[in-house]
């Protein structure tokens, strides 16, 4: 049970305080309700580029990192398709340094031309390192474009193409800040050996006079229900054929979420999972395979991806995946598999909760979903899932017409490495 207090400042900033007396550190987590899904299609990758610019100095503080390091702190940030999260860990004596830094960049950035110019290049190198200069690096670009026709999940967080990042202008940066970075769109979580009353005073001091800004109301185009299976084949200079399949599932708060999560546990989690045992070990069709879901806030997807054993026809490999899913739909899962999944999830939660930063991050995330206390009720929801429900949800998800298949094939004349 994770205990916490919650209050809201007059300007709309939501604040969560979690007490843990056992640690000499505090975690300060600021989550902004903006992700790649809030970008315009002709200007993607912006939420993430913007995250880099948040470290380029704010209106009253020229350098973000230096004062924090001086205070013995470490920090980082990440952007997803749903939100952007900034976090700091530092000795509890120096907590005010963290609040000073975070409040100033919520107030306003320095908007330096030099910082934009450098970070454009840095992000382009990040793009190349992870998505271009790597075999199968662009697979997710194709998977997303095939799976989502309408919803902004059709592009990756890093962006659709390099040129979108290269063309970003300072005016765009300013407009983005004004639209998304204000107390109404943020959640602050402080965790550590702290007293809520003392934190209230400090947060009021540093964040209290930041103007509320305007509440951003998200109006994203919904992904239409898919009724026809879609397929795509691409070839590239890779050593092995690979298969990617996706199916649409509900959103994060959908009633079927927990059952869908259990489906991926049974099918793809660990070396005793069904797909690993049947497709990698027994039939030797894949050299590796995974089955997982994206866990996104808006309707997400279940993904099966794997690399094929040399010489196996991709049609045969795909048929075996389909057969495994057919068995799931026809026979469901056993009580033992259900139990095992619950055990795994219980253990995962316990290990995650050991980490102070993870707790601070999760509290902010569940508050974004609607209520930080969901962090404490999640396991109960898993415990209520029945095998019958899993079967029903599986039939719904893996129904004809709901799938997308990408064959990622090697060029037949690909050169032999080394």
């Amino acid at each position, binding site marked *: 049970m994770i205990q916490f207090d919650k209050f809201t400042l007059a300007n709309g900033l939501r604040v969560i305080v979690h007490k843990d007396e056992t640690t000499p550190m505090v975690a300060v987590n600021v989550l902004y309700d903006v992700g790649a899904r809030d970008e315009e299609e002709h200007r993607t990758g912006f939420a993430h580029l913007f995250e880099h610019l948040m470290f380029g100095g704010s209106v009253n503080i020229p350098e973000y990192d230096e004062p924090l390091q001086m*205070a013995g702190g470490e920090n980082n940030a990440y952007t997803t398709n749903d939100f952007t999260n900034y976090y700091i860990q530092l000795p509890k004596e120096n907590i*005010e340094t963290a609040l000073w830094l975070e409040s100033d960049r919520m107030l306003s950035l320095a908007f330096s031309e030099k910082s934009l110019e450098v970070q454009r290049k840095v992000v382009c190198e990040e793009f190349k390192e992870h998505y271009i200069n790597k075999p199968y690096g662009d697979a997710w670009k194709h998977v997303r474009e095939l799976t989502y026709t309408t919803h902004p999940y059709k592009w990756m967080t890093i962006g659709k193409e390099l040129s979108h990042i290269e063309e970003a202008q300072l005016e765009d940066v300013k407009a983005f800040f004004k639209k998304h970075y204000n107390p109404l769109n943020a959640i602050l979580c402080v965790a550590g050996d702290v007293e809520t009353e003392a934190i209230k005073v400090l947060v009021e001091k540093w964040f209290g006079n930041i103007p509320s800004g305007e509440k951003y109301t998200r109006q994203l185009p919904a992904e239409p229900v898919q009724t026809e299976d879609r397929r795509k084949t691409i070839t590239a200079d890779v050593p092995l054929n690979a298969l990617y399949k996706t199916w649409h599932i509900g959103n994060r708060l959908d009633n079927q979420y927990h059952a869908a999560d259990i489906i991926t546990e049974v099918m793809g989690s660990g*070396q005793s999972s069904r797909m690993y045992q049947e497709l990698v070990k027994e039939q*030797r069709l894949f050299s590796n395979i995974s089955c997982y879901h994206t866990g996104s806030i808006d309707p997400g997807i279940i993904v099966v991806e794997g690399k094929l054993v040399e010489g196996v026809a991709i049609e045969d490999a795909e048929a075996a995946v389909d057969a495994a899913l057919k068995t799931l739909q026809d026979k469901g899962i056993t009580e033992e598999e259900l*139990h095992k999944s619950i055990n795994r999830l*219980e253990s995962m939660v316990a290990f995650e909760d050991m980490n102070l930063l993870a707790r601070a991050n999760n509290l902010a995330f569940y508050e974004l979903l609607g209520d930080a206390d969901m962090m404490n009720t999640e396991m109960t929801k898993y415990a209520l899932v029945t095998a019958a429900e899993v079967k029903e949800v599986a039939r719904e998800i893996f129904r004809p017409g709901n799938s997308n298949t990408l064959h990622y094939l090697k060029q037949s004349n690909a050169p032999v490495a080394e």
Partner: protein
Amino acid sequence: MLNRTIPPAIHDAISFNFELKPCQLTRCLNQIPVYWLQGGTQEVVEVSWVFKAGIWQEPQTAVAQATAALLKNGTAHKSAFRLNEAIEYYGASLKTSANNDFASVTLHALSKHLPMLLPVVREIIAEAIFPEEEVNIYKQNALQRLAVNLRQCDFVANRHIDAFVFGRQHPYGRFTEQENVEALSSAVLNDFHKRFYTAANCTIFMSGNFDESNLELLKDNFGKDQWNVQAGAEVSIPLYTKMPDPQLKYRINNDPNGVQGAVRIARPFIHRTDPKFAEALVMNTVFGGYFGSHLMANIREDKGFTYGIYSSLISYQQEAMMMIATEAGKDVCEQTVAEVYKEMKIMQEQPIDSEELLLIKNYLLGGILGDLEGPFSIMQRWKNLILNDQTIDDFHRNISIYKGITVERIQELATEYLNPEQFYELIVV
């Protein structure tokens, strides 16, 4: 009116006290040392079995890692599936791996499940049989993984730079080729397992929220008999000497369509047991060891050549090296190398600012304070000390070095260790 330009007062981390929570040692009847440490609020536990069964000990390339990878793929009584099922049913994970010096088997579980799990782990560690069929699947998949990795410039660069510094014949410089994987067999793995995964070669570390009965259970399962120990069998390990490559600069063209290059600049370095190592670690932090380092400030934050560039000190059991590593745009790789050397020269020619040194100290010590939280990370500190034959005194000595080192000393160390002509230099596109 709040003046935001004035930073809040801070407490310097150098003024803090650093206590490493003690870890207990119990010896089993069969003499296996068990280091244990209780703590944490969640009912979770981590148990590691560490064997001197790394690449250093292997009789032929790729054996140590294959043995670790296949350890839980079958015993005389249970198939790979049944073993994995027995662990995963309880939401536990059992990771097996081998690095240059050690093989480790690590169990993460809820403490309440230990009675069901420990007998299975015992069976896996002591009675693995490496079935031929499992070895064949492993070989096929390892070859496929290798083929994918060889397309990546960072993977190729890492193989070569190790070979330059230590020599291709040395365990730390050796790398796996297709024929090494093909040469693996059930017999070779069984032999390696029988020689090195033994009670006489094992150290156990247990941390987390567990009670005395759990500890007794661990000793019951692992500490009573001399499992796998063969009377009179002395394990002899060849001595290796490093043979650095005589040529210092290399360029490798691995991918004609590559848009980035992997840059590696490395040299042999003093070992972590050397009295100067802790000081050198501070010098390395200034140079390239954290986000605000000279290398990052210049090559990422000023020039935008890369997503990240780091310099690290890598200390194995027998030898150590210093390595600067980055992936940079293909057309700016050469410039990146030149800038790295320029930064070395700057560190040698002028002392760093005393404010900067204070920042580094606070940053380093703040990080250590964060590490002293939670039973697993405290045990990780202890493991590093114990496996390197160091003690709590070394921990305290290092802390006092981090607190007391001067800008002059940093410059002296830069002069001694940051000479461009002593570094290997490699770009793989």
